[in-house]
């Protein structure tokens, strides 16, 4: 039922979307026949998919029409704040000032990496061209927040569970850096592993969503691959610098200038 073809992509009509909806209907019928009791959830999920994506579609349409830096910055800031909030709330432990540090980390690692990609590698004109900046930043922040929350979680867990070991090092004359080094290295490593793993299997286990999207939109597969390579490297760079920055910021907060571990500052996050 597809009609006109614009800029390489086949445009979808309302009938196309209705047919796709029919596929969900099949799942609903299966649920009824097998008495899985999932019909209501499935219906709700389908409606939410449409509504949420439509909303973000309108938001992106509005954002992409913005052509001044001052108008795009609040959007960028909002994305960074949301990512920072999500990063610290995934961690099971917390300490005072963690949100500020997570937001600062994502701003430094995510925003700077994205700007290098849009401004230097892709060469978007201007560098803050929303069509490039927003999706790329979104991908970087999404991966970055996973990395920094894993790093934070690991660091805080190590400092709580291995407090005696850390204090043993301090008691025998280690500097705070020498005492913390094992825990810091573990935390950075843990945060970076998912990104490295995804680079290992990309293109083998599954095609990345961005590349698939470009191919469906009519792009040459090799061009799509080039973009995907840039995106993977951008994510790897931003995530690893993010993990290092958050771990160092947490270290500076949790070890005092008197080379003590301020373990009282680490608290379990209340269950919601």
């Amino acid at each position, binding site marked *: 039922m597809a009609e006109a073809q614009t800029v390489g992509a086949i445009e979808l009509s309302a009938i196309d979307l209705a047919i796709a909806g029919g596929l969900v209907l099949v799942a609903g019928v299966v649920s009824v026949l097998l008495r899985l009791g999932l019909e209501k959830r499935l219906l709700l999920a389908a409606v939410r998919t449409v509504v949420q994506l439509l909303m973000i579609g309108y938001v992106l349409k509005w954002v992409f029409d913005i052509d001044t830096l001052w108008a795009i910055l609040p959007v960028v800031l909002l994305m960074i704040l949301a990512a920072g909030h999500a990063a610290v709330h995934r961690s099971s432990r917390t300490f005072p000032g963690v949100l500020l540090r997570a937001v600062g980390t994502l701003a430094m690692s995510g925003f700077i990496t994205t700007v290098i990609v849009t401004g230097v590698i892709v060469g978007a004109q201007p560098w803050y061209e929303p069509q490039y900046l927003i999706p790329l930043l979104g991908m970087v922040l999404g991966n970055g927040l996973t990395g920094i929350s894993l790093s934070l979680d690991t660091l805080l867990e190590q400092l709580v569970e291995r407090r005696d070991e850390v204090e043993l090092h301090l008691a*025998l004359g280690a500097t705070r850096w020498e005492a913390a080094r094992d825990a810091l290295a573990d935390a950075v490593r843990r945060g970076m592993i998912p990104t490295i793993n995804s680079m290992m299997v990309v293109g083998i286990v599954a095609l990345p969503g961005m590349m698939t999207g470009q191919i469906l939109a009519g792009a040459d597969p090799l061009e799509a691959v080039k973009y995907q390579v840039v995106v993977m490297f951008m994510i790897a760079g931003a995530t690893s610098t993010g993990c290092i920055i958050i771990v160092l910021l947490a270290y500076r907060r949790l070890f005092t200038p008197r080379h003590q571990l301020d373990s009282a500052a680490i608290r379990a996050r209340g269950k919601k």
Partner: protein
Amino acid sequence: MSETLLSTIDLAVSAGGTRLLEGITLKLHAGEMLALTGPSGCGKTSLLRAIAGLDDPDAGEVRFREQPPEHTGWPAFRRHVTFVHQRPVMLNATVEENLRRPFRYRHVAREFDRDRAVALLKDFGLGEEHLAQEARTLSIGQQQRVSVVRALLIEPAVLLLDEPTSALDEDARSAVENLLRREGHRNGRAALLVTHDREQARRLCDRSLDLREHLPEAGPRMRGGDDG
């Protein structure tokens, strides 16, 4: 009078917002072993941790050779005024690695002397074969002896011993006490021994300070937990 190695001036400590001890002024001279005695929960461990700078005191000062720790920096201070935990803390590694680790710290600035390590272990009733053993597979008594040997190897001027025999059986306790009696004074070293056992204080120490005289007016609220 021999050199004053460690002194505290009007030290006060608290835990969980409750003042435990105050007005602790003491001098520890070279070659001396001083006992700090008091009942469980009176703040002995908190006091020793504050002296080691692992926690901040509420008030007062600590000095090593008449200088505040900031003079040399806290790591250098702790390398000379070394705290030994009440419950032995072993790294997840062999006994030898546990003994070697402090020699990698910048402020220790010495070479690991394996012969001396073996000799000390033997004095503590542990053989050379224990060096290759995973430290956490040792009994608590053996771990505590390794813990004291680890501290002794870096040749601190002052040992801060937090109830070092409280977790040990009779034989292990007597082995640790014998070693402390000999090594505690070696080359003018001094030791501050925290204990609730007044008999042990008498057996090992030249003099003792009863911390009950330093409880705040109302007395501390006794806490649970591991504060000795």
